[in-house]
């Protein structure tokens, strides 16, 4: 199936259309262009993957680790997948790689949101220096009911965390 698609696309776009105009596909751009493009994507994807791994290992709580996985990790995989069509200079492979990229871009945020939601419901502790938790005081961990914000809550009460008592935390929000 994939090979049929691959052949069909290569023939219709690469061989037929370009040969009709007397242009060979490989002569549209010199091969070195595709090789450099593939190397660029491979290096970029590898560096983003390393960043995501370091973020997952070093970030202090679940919610921040989730960010490293969902952003740097997704972009790293997308770049690595795009390195393949760039190297092979083929439209069929490009379509297949775009399937991978679009699928990751669609599912990674959803999966990340699900994990974050589950972690919050399970009561995973936040980092001690977390600045804002907009659900603070709204979710009852005993009865598992999500309340709305009280109507008489001041407009400035957006869920800023209380000041830590140890005193070494940085200023969290504009004073005044």
């Amino acid at each position, binding site marked *: 199936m*994939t*090979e049929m698609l*691959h*052949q069909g696309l*290569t*023939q219709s776009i*690469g*061989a037929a259309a370009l040969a009709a105009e007397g242009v060979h596909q*490989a002569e549209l751009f010199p*091969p070195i262009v*595709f*090789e450099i493009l*593939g*190397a660029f994507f*491979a*290096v970029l*994807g*590898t560096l983003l*993957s*390393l960043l*995501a*791994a370091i973020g*997952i*290992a070093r970030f202090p709580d*679940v919610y921040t*680790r*989730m960010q490293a*996985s969902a952003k740097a*990790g997704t972009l*790293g*995989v997308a770049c*690595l*997948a795009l*390195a*393949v*069509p760039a*190297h*092979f*200079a*083929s439209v*069929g*492979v490009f379509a*297949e*790689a775009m*399937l*991978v990229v679009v*699928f*990751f871009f669609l*599912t990674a945020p*959803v*999966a990340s949101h*699900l*994990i974050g*939601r*589950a*972690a919050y*419901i*399970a*009561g*995973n502790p936040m980092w001690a220096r977390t600045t804002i938790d907009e659900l603070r005081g709204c979710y009852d961990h005993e009865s598992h009911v999500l309340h709305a914000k009280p109507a008489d809550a001041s407009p400035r009460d957006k869920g800023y965390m209380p000041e830590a008592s140890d005193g070494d935390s940085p200023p969290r929000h504009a004073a005044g």
Partner: protein
Amino acid sequence: MSAPETTAADPIKSATATDTTATAAVDAFDGLMTAPLYQVCLALVGVAAVITAYRLVRGPTLADRVIAIDQLGFFAVGAIALYAVLTGQPVLLSVGIVMALILFLGTAAFAMFIERRARS
């Protein structure tokens, strides 16, 4: 080893012999000047996977471990893509598509499990 077996064992050569249209682009890169670079990239993705495995072992809660497993799957797809370039087999990308699907299903199922366990 006889001669026909040698050609059959080399997937690139045999594919070029039978299927000239699809691998016309591969022929242009027969030299693969950037092969060492892709090998280094593959090794670095492996290093990233080891760093993530640290969180998988250490991770204080189940959610941390699920995130680490998810990320390990991402790295597997990336490594498959690099391996596709190194072996000259673009068909290997199909494995990445299937893997992405299974990864999402697994993560969603784990999230549901964590949530349900917390509610009960």
